[in-house]
């Protein structure tokens, strides 16, 4: 009797446990049921990089599902954790079908997972072949957003100081204006440049974006697009512009290391500084409801470093956001993903959402005009015949290289390190990182 009872109890317990598992099991088909019913059409799982655009992507995904019935899941990785998230997601039973890499260096790590996009509709929509990311003959990634950065100038403050943006046509002009403002800092009540933000919140503005300029001019001079040994021909120009930034900012150079990117932005917003080096993505943080600026107040000007033909220099325009399709996804999911991408960049809803809600300029034929002021200014510069400075930092050897340069820059700004250390990190670090990468 006892034995029977024990057996019964065991059974109920097992059933209980199983039903706990069963709970998931019924849930899984239910959730994949929606995809199951349209399994011929597959489903899309997009791992999004930009937290700011999460909501817009979610809405766009919903709109697509309503229109076509194909389920689209958008997951956004928290800032600074994209690689980690992608790494852990790609190992799961339902990996992302659509993810992104930042350029050639990022692609090198993920190319085994990237589908060759040659011959796909979405590739045909690109306005220029230059926006495709290639590995040999295969096209593994396509850029989906073009961004610009430069020096954002507060025109109102500049006028107060007695200048206009038209007075700044070269590095010499910029230096003159900035140093004049610094000389009259107390009288004017504002400084030339907002403070730096050398920690992780905005160090990329200097170790990556600003460092792009000497690299760009060196590539231009040597007629190359990438290198495993940088010479550092234009590092003096890099030093000149960085010196200009730190010696004419809102605070003492030594105190720069105590400021974050948010501080820097807030200073600019509060009218404490005329210039703020940043990009088109900052538009939403500067202009709009509750923000102090209107389109008339701001102008993005090129970062002049005193190299190349400055009369023809435009903004730094490029991308480090490339879409890649996961080649290990199911056949039907791959097809669904390609259809989704194509829809995003060709349909009325898709292009509108990307232009208005996300504020993107997309390098596709059906692109709509973005309301983003800086993007418009970039187009205006190009129309005037200026040459945009391309983004070469995707060819930087590694994150480690950027960090070393950043550390050296911080030490230099604080006065605890020399410029030589920056040069060493830049030139020698480049070579050793490339060697480590390929060795």
């Amino acid at each position, binding site marked *: 009797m006892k034995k029977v009872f024990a057996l019964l109890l065991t059974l109920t317990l097992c059933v209980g446990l199983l039903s706990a*598992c069963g709970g998931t099991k019924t849930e899984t088909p239910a959730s994949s049921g929606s995809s199951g019913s349209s399994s011929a059409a597959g489903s899309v799982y997009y791992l999004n990089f930009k*937290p700011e655009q999460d909501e817009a992507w979610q809405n766009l995904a919903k709109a697509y599902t309503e229109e076509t019935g194909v389920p689209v899941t958008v997951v956004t990785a928290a*800032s600074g954790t994209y690689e980690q998230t992608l790494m852990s997601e790609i190992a799961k039973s339902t990996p992302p079908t659509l993810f992104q890499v930042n350029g050639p260096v990022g692609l090198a790590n993920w190319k085994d997972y990237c589908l060759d996009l040659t011959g796909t509709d979405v590739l045909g929509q690109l306005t220029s072949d230059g926006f495709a990311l290639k590995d040999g003959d295969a096209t593994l990634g396509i850029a989906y957003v073009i961004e610009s950065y430069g020096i954002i100038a507060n025109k109102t403050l500049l006028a107060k100081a007695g200048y206009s943006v038209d007075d700044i046509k070269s590095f010499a002009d910029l230096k003159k204006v900035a140093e004049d403002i610094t000389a009259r800092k107390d009288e004017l009540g504002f400084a030339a440049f907002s403070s730096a933000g050398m920690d992780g*919140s905005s160090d990329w503005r200097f170790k990556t974006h600003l460092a792009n300029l000497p690299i760009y001019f060196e590539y231009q001079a040597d007629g190359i697009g990438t290198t495993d040994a940088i010479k550092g021909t234009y590092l003096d120009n890099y030093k000149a512009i960085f010196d200009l930034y730190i010696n004419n900012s809102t605070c003492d150079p030594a105190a720069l290391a*105590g400021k974050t*990117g948010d501080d820097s932005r807030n200073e600019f917003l509060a009218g404490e500084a005329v210039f703020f080096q940043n990009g088109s993505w900052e538009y939403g943080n500067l202009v709009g409801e509750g923000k102090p600026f209107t389109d008339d107040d701001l102008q993005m000007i090129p970062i002049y470093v005193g190299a190349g033909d400055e009369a023809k220099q435009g903004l730094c325009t490029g991308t480090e956001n490339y879409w890649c399709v996961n080649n290990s996804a199911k056949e039907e999911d791959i097809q669904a993903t390609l259809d989704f991408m194509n829809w995003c960049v060709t349909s009325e809803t898709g292009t509108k959402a990307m232009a208005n809600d996300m504020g993107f300029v997309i390098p596709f034929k059906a692109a709509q005009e973005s309301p983003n002021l800086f993007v418009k200014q970039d187009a205006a510069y190009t129309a005037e015949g200026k040459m945009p400075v391309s983004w070469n930092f995707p060819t930087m050897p590694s994150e480690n290289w950027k960090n070393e340069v950043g550390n050296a820059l911080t030490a230099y700004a604080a006065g605890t390190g020399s410029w030589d250390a920056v040069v060493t990190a830049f030139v020698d670090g480049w070579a050793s990182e490339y060697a480590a990468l390929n060795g």
Partner: protein
Amino acid sequence: MEKKRTLRDNILSGILGILCIAWVYPIFMILFNSLKKETSISTGSAFQLPNSESFAGLANYVNALTSKGFLSALWYSLVITISSVVLILICCSMCAWFITRVNSKVSKALYYLFVFSMVVPFQMLMFTLSATADRLHLSSPYTICIIYLGFGAGLAVFMFCGFMKSIPITIEEAAMIDGCNPIQTFFLVVLPILKPTLISVGILETMWLWNDYLLPYLVLDRTKGYMTIPILIQYFRGSFGKVEMGPMMASIMMNIIPIIIVYLLCQKHIIKGVAAGAVKG
């Protein structure tokens, strides 16, 4: 002599009081910063109280509650914590009773295995565990408790065993002779005696589960939007280094407040539980 004593004690009280203020200050600081306007929050002004210009009322809280799905994260956090703690308490106490009362090589081996699992760091398992959870579809907040039962069993079994050894076996034997089967004996006789231990283990596990970050971060299925509060807080950082400080501090406060309320309500149990747990652990 007596007078000198009290003077010294008063000085001591004073010192400890000042220390107390230092202890509460960080939380207080987050509280008043969370009431400031976004643009008024800067690195250097975190110690300044909000003034009429920078005061933003509860705007940050509204923002935090509405923009990133705070409520659903709170719900998932609650579900995960409660279901896992209940499951761990019931299953592990049963298992521990079996291990202490059955004297065989298998039960001894089991015991040592559990103790071993207690010290193994999570990094050792993080990848394989999340892969296993994914494969067995245990990656929802409603089923992750099975993972937690497995991973958290070590500590619970160890603590239960420690206490159960001190329970006299005669009571149980008497119950059995009276015709109870082992299950009745366990639930009617052993479990009531075990109540203080259940509370201590429950508290320790709750403290761990409510604050756990990496396990749910790796295991939970992102595609369905499952998030716990510690994971959510990370989402206030933007891709270009912009941190939404206001809403972030508001959600930090909303994470802390329930903990403090629970703490104030059952402080005695918590402190006792921790002391007991530590002595055994």
